[in-house]
């Protein structure tokens, strides 16, 4: 396999972007990435997207997006793995370049959630329709059960959960692209209304529109496009039981652990070598479970990480310096690419007020459903 680098990135801000359509969002992000690299050609496009068919009634995104980017004719296909669609698109692009099949590939993600769709019902399609959604459990409901299980098994508290939201909003307040550029207090989190107990409104990522895109090429060609390429050291994807009921320990995310093991092995590094990470905090409990499964803290000990400052900017391993899904926003199909962009900017020293000092190796973890799929990528500045 060839060594692969990211050489350019483009991203819309995240939020309720009523003036922008699904295709507008994609073109904005993709064109910015191409312009930044000065690329006059493109071999193929991957479009990460969870549910455009349900949100805006549009499928067949590959040719649509290639056409609107002015690149009709290139290979282009949509990649879907629920909220991990963006990470899965990045992995597809990585493998295509690594294999030698293509030299310049765009990995993108896009979601238009604010266009009138029943968001709760659409997101629930990432759960098992026949055994979960039919009985009335919502997506927040599934993560709430993961949280309840973590509290029972490890003594994690509602305050522990709230500290994740407070930290990620503190980071997101420094991110010009974030949907919520404001801090929240512990009291505000703990007094917000219940969505599914013990999760409250401020434990949940918002409903967002947005798109993100990165350009990949072989590392030995990267200097044609940028002075500061970021190498993809490893990529891992894994699955676990679709239904939460089928997991022996509902408080542990097996797919995250397996995807991380595969990425660490390919990269030749371990959790102790990672300087910062973007992890899939669709709900505050998810960040707690993910940092355990990634090996940043011992199993069952994720609850105190945000409270103790371990995962804050300036801590031992800053997590979600972008603000995470919680504060930056979570246009589901775009999230995996947006995470990679945060690491890309951090490793190039371009993260401005939220720059993590001395970061050389970063990790991005993107998750689908209630943890039934997970994608991990590890990056290094070169």
């Amino acid at each position, binding site marked *: 396999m060839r060594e692969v680098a990211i050489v350019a990135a483009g991203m819309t801000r995240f939020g309720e972007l009523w003036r922008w359509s699904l295709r507008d969002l994609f073109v904005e992000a993709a064109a910015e990435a191409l312009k930044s690299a000065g690329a006059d050609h493109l071999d193929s496009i991957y479009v990460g997207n969870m549910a455009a068919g349900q949100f805006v009634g549009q499928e067949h995104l590959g040719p649509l997006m290639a056409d609107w980017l002015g690149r009709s004719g290139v290979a282009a296909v949509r990649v879907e793995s629920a909220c991990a669609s963006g990470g899965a698109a990045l992995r597809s692009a990585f493998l295509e370049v690594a294999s030698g099949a293509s030299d310049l590939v765009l990995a993108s993600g896009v979601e238009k959630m604010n266009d009138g769709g029943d968001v709760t019902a659409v997101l629930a399609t990432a759960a098992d329709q*026949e055994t979960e959604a*039919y009985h*009335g*459990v919502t997506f927040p*409901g599934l993560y*709430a*059960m*993961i949280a309840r299980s973590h509290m029972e098994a490890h003594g994690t508290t509602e305050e522990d959960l709230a500290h994740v939201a407070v930290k990620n909003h503190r980071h997101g307040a420094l991110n010009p692209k974030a949907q919520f550029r404001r801090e929240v207090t512990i009291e505000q989190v703990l007094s917000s209304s219940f969505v*599914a107990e013990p999760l409250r409104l401020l434990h949940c990522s918002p409903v967002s529109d947005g798109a993100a895109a990165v350009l990949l090429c072989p590392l030995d060609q990267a200097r044609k496009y940028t002075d500061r390429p970021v190498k993809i050291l490893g990529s891992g994807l894994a699955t676990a039981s679709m239904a939460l009921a089928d997991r022996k320990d509902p408080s542990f995310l097996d797919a995250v652990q397996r995807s991380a093991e595969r990425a660490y092995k390919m990269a030749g590094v371990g959790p102790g070598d990672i300087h910062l990470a973007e992890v899939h905090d669709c709900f505050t409990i998810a960040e707690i479970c993910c940092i355990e499964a990634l090996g940043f803290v011992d199993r069952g000990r994720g609850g105190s990480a945000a409270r103790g400052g371990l995962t804050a900017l300036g801590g031992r391993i800053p997590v979600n310096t972008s603000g995470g899904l919680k504060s930056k926003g979570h246009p589901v199909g775009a999230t995996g690419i947006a995470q990679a962009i945060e690491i890309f900017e951090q490793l190039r020293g371009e993260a401005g007020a939220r720059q993590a000092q001395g970061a050389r190796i970063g990790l991005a973890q993107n998750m689908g459903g209630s943890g039934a799929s997970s994608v991990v990528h590890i990056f290094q500045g070169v």
Partner: protein
Amino acid sequence: MPSPRYWREIPARYRLEAARCRVCGKVSFPARPVCPACGGREMEGTALSRRGKVITCTVVHIAPGPLLMEAPYAMAVVETPEGARLMAQVADCEPDGVRPGMEVTLEFRLLSREGRGGILCYGHKAVPAR
């Protein structure tokens, strides 16, 4: 929901029909053709006991459309004595009172009415064991 899609699910929803792996003994619910634990393909039909224990739970406050008027309601992952686990609403009690470890029985109930036609969706709900 088109009616074939509905009646295909009747064995699991009405009768709690599960499958036991002849190789490793794991009981899966709903029944499936391949054992998720060992990959074995010799599965035999078995029915679940109509009782179990809450593994984890929540109280849903923001509910999907058909259940809007029922919120807040409790949901739980319930483990039956056969070792199978299933998702169920917990009824006939204060939602706040449902906790992991609680003993429940599974009762055949109306779950929701779907669509404009008001198709009746049946299944099992958990209620506190008496």
